């Protein structure tokens, strides 16, 4: 029975969960109690935010287009010709609540999370982490805390930009490419899209940001065994954080109220 979790694997899994838990605890302590490494934070904000922008814009644009395309087909086929003007709220809701936060998080984890693992992993195997410690810079405070803060701030920002881009792309497909009435499309979107829909997407994005940074740093810090080890750490980071994000996404969507009735 190859897929039955054996006790050894369960113990390993719990051990790793414990490691992550300890790292989260130490990171939180450093974020809330100690002086911040401001230079590192600014550098990371730029690295995660500014440099990820092109990728996010591109994926959001095509995410919006394809979501527009399928929603159009769905309405046209099941509700009937003419109903396509009502696709607006569905597209905006699907994009801002699910598709864009997920796309952005997975892209950022591939671009930034893996880079964190590679950079910290290289520092680990060349004793630079030890050197940091010996020179009075706690590695968690110097490396992990700024990356986590930057990621928690920047992933929602990127998601917000992505939401906008995705909705514009959806509008472009439905209204400009398929010739649906612009007025009714926009009116419907405004009428049914709640601020809370966008907000839940951003809340999830903040959680995903934390996941990306913590897993990247965790894998980096536990890197062993030369260049090969660094390669393994980067691959694992992308796999673990993408899976974690996808699983967490479902539970967060379930846990967050669907509507607050706010406009």
């Amino acid at each position: 029975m190859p897929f039955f979790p054996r006790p050894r694997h369960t113990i390993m899994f719990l051990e790793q969960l414990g490691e992550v838990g300890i790292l989260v605890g130490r990171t939180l302590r450093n974020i809330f109690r100690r002086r911040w490494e401001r230079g590192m934070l600014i550098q990371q904000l730029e690295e995660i935010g500014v440099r990820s922008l092109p990728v996010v814009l591109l994926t959001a644009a095509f995410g919006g287009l394809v979501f527009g395309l399928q929603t159009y087909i769905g309405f046209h086929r099941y509700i009937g010709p003419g109903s396509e003007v009502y696709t607006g709220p569905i597209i905006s809701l699907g994009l801002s609540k699910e598709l864009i936060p997920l796309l952005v998080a997975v892209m950022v984890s591939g671009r930034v999370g893996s880079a964190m693992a590679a950079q910290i992993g290289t520092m680990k195997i060349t004793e630079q982490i030890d050197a940091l410690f010996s020179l009075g810079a706690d590695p968690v405070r110097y490396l992990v805390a700024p990356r986590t803060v930057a990621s928690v701030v920047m992933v929602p920002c990127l998601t917000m930009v992505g939401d906008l881009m995705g909705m514009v792309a959806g509008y472009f497909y439905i209204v400009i490419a398929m010739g649906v009435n612009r007025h009714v499309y926009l009116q419907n979107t405004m009428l049914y899209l709640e601020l809370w829909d966008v907000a839940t997407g951003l809340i999830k994005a903040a959680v995903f940001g934390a996941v990306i940074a913590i897993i990247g740093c965790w894998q980096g810090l536990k890197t062993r065994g030369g260049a090969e080890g660094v390669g393994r750490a980067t691959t694992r980071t992308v796999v673990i954080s993408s899976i974690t994000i996808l699983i967490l996404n479902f539970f967060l969507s379930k846990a967050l109220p669907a509507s607050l009735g706010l406009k």
Partner: protein
Amino acid sequence: MIKIVGLHKSFGSTPVLRGVDLEVRRGETMVVIGQSGSGKSVLIKHLIGLLKPDRGEIYVDGIEISRLRGDALQKVTRKFGMLFQGAALFDSLTVGQNVRFGLERYTSYTSDEMDRIVADCLAKVGLRGVERLMPHELSGGMKKRVGLARAIAYSPDIMLYDEPSTGIDPIRADAINDLINVMKTELRVTSVVITHDMVSSYKVADRIAMLYDGRIIEIGTPREIQNSGNPVVQQFIRGEAEGPIKIF
């Protein structure tokens, strides 16, 4: 000053240190010799809290440090300057920023004073005008010397040198031996030097300790070590392939 009592350390099921006892007196230079892989780097990393012992105690100025954490531990690391075996320069920072790193965290000099100390320390290791270079632009020996400048910059009380002369040409290596001696005589720095270079051991050591099979098997002045009756020590200091130490 430093006292190690019954230090045990294993990695997985491989024991590396099996009851190391060692005392380093204030102001002396203790050289630790031993084969490659005998655990010298592991030993030195325990002194500064980078590794935690499985068993045993480490006292620095009378404080048992192996169970300290956080700020209490950083107060201890402030006393130490460590030269890593592979230099361990921060590759995203310039040479100047590397040497400044400890100054910024451990001292309250102004920025101008720090610039001067950085240039000073680089000059001491025979480097000038390299502040703006990145570590990857340096040769291996230059990196090692920058690592040394970084470690001495904030005037630590205790210096730990992990193979200071490895990878450096013989003339520069001797200059580093001189620097170690100057630090002792002028700044009263206590030093632990790891090396397998016997020439430099004799030149800098007040006492030499040999690590073998996870323990300190012999300790004494360079003369006492040279006259040691222990065949293992004799084989090592003469660098002979034949003897009680089996290498294959």
